């Protein structure tokens, strides 16, 4: 054994384990031979050469492999190529095994990145709100403040709510039974020609959801969400509207959708019930649905730009009026001062009350006799006296005649009149087809009309897609917060 070990050259690299038995065997044989130089028998030398040849070849091969490994590990590029195939696997396994430690280790890096992104987003939002507050010199801002006061919500919060991004990406008008697209509008430049496929699959998904979750009850899929994008759905009996939006829709957007789909349903009831596949006639409703697209672009534009041309005009007008008023006041005050110095105090009073504008100056000169000026300033009076008797016959034209309440005509198949705007609300009675009910209210979320009256004289609720509403539905009050 000592001979075997000593027979290996000190500088020779250690053989790989798989080579060891073979190498040991050949080394054992060569070790039994006399050492080179002592009793150098040519035959034995030749034998030694033959027996040692495999060792030498293996040693050379191993040296070459080691050199190659050293070269590859020394070059960063080569090293990456060498270990990258296994790195992802190692990282995944490490995360699985030591989740908490990995989070702790990565947080300083990832947390910084997230923090930076959030800060940037908040800065953007702040810029939008700031722009909105600076340009909030309009009726909407005043309405927002009023609304905020009434609801107990700070106007800033309402401004924030309105500043949240909202964009209508696509609008689909779809035939409910066939899933065929009747009209497609897109707010995206790269809209493909896949509207018919999407509307078909959307209809299939609606059918599936109804079957899977409806459990025989009335109801429908109203929204689909994926990431930040949502599909808002408003359905009538024979058609439905699917609007793809980003962000949070503004107040009243759903109502606008509902109003449009109901209008389409009413206008095209016959076409929809016997739809022959020709969607060209629905091009007429493009402007109406296009308003929904414009809503988002208007809002975006308002958030981006400063004062609008209209706002500038109003500001200039107000500034002009202010200057005119100041001039008027100055002139009036000047003449009043002159009069105060020359006339009794009563005359001054008359002049001051008769200065609605710059035209007051001539009247000041006419006040030499105080009485006539008093009658002259009463010129508006004739209108008052005139209205007293003759306008009695004219008053009917001015008294606001209340618009007739909209009516709901029950569609074929009838409708359940329920005690509340929900499918689990008690059924008060079943209204038969073509029965006409008066619409007295609606629910906040939409989809239900409050009608009057049942045969027992009670008010009840009907699902909107089971009735056809005629009349002015825009002024129907919200009578249920649901």
């Amino acid at each position, binding site marked *: 054994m000592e001979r075997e070990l000593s027979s290996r050259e000190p500088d020779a690299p250690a053989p790989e384990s798989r080579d060891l038995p073979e190498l040991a065997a050949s080394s054992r044989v060569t070790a039994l031979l006399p050492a080179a130089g002592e009793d150098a028998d040519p035959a034995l030398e030749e034998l030694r050469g033959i027996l040692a040849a495999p060792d030498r070849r293996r040693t050379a091969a191993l040296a070459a492999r080691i050199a190659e490994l050293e070269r590859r590990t020394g070059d960063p590029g080569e090293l990456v190529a060498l270990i990258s195939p296994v790195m992802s696997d190692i990282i995944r396994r490490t995360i699985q095994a030591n989740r908490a430690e990995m989070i702790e280790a990565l947080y300083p890096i990832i947390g910084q990145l997230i923090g930076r992104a959030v800060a940037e987003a908040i800065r953007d939002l702040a810029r939008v709100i700031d722009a909105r507050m600076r340009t909030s010199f309009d009726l909407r801002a005043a309405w927002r403040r009023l609304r905020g006061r009434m609801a107990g919500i700070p106007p800033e919060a309402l401004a924030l709510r309105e500043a949240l991004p909202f964009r209508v990406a696509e609008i689909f008008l779809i*035939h409910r*039974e*066939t*899933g*065929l*697209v009747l009209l497609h509008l897109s707010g995206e430049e790269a809209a493909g020609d*896949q509207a*018919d*496929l999407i509307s*078909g*699959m959307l209809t*299939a*998904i609606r*059918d*599936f959801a*109804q*079957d*899977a979750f409806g459990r025989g009850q009335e109801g429908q899929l109203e929204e689909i969400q994926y990431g930040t994008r949502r599909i808002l759905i408003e359905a009538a009996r024979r058609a439905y509207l699917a609007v793809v939006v980003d962000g949070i829709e503004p107040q009243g957007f759903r109502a606008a959708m509902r109003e449009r789909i109901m209008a389409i349903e009413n206008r095209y009831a016959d076409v929809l019930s016997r739809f*022959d*596949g*020709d*969607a*060209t006639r629905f091009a007429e409703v493009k402007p109406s649905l296009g308003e929904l697209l414009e809503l988002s672009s208007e809002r975006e534009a308002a958030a981006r730009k400063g004062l609008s041309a209209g706002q500038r005009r109003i500001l200039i007008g107000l500034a002009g009026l202010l200057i005119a008023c100041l001039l008027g006041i100055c002139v009036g005050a000047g003449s009043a001062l002159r009069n105060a110095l020359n006339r009794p105090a009563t005359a001054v009073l008359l002049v001051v009350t008769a200065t609605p504008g710059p035209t007051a100056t001539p009247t000041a000169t006419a006040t030499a006799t105080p009485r006539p000026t008093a009658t002259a300033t009463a010129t508006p009076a004739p209108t008052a006296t005139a209205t007293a008797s003759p306008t009695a016959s004219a008053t009917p034209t001015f008294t606001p005649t209340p618009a007739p309440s909209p009516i709901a005509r029950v569609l074929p198949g009838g409708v359940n009149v329920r005690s509340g705007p929900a499918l689990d609300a008690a059924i008060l009675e079943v209204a038969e087809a073509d029965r006409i009910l008066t619409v007295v209210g609606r629910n906040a979320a939409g989809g239900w009309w409050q009608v009057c009256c049942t045969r027992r004289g009670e008010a009840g609720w009907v699902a909107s897609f089971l009735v056809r509403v005629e009349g002015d539905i825009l002024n129907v009050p919200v009578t249920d917060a649901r």
Partner: protein
Amino acid sequence: MISLSKKVCLLGDFAVGKTSLVRRFVYDLFDDKYLSTIGVKVSRKVIVLPRKDDIVELTLMLWDLTSTAEFDSVRISYLRGASGAILVCDLTRPATLDVLPGHLAELRQLNPAATFVLAANKADLIERHELTEAQVAQRAADLGIPYFITSAKTGANVEAAFRRLGKSIIGEDRE
């Protein structure tokens, strides 16, 4: 040119080649996984057909319905509004021909005016055929609908089957 769109269904037993007919010969946007998740996949096939003195660009919206029992309850909803269907059977499995009258009756119940075409598929697997053309012709005659011996693999007669269905739908089905 008149542009029309119609909903049509692909009906037939499991693995008769309905999806293969769709995959190779129509515009296919969605993944086949929808068949196993909601039981249907919608594709599109546009054909241009002459009608009287005009030309009709007919867009067939193809609803490929899976035939597994778990979607039986929603099946009626999927069939609703279809103007016609391609009934597909497999020439290597005689039982797939026997179920077609049931599919036809199901759709006719919802739409009595629906039109049909029978596609006996897998014509390329000649050595494994267990149905003869005569048997297919007889069944088609019993149902009163035209038939085609098709192969989704080679494309044989697939286009012809779609065109014939399209003609039937627009009322120009005299060859």
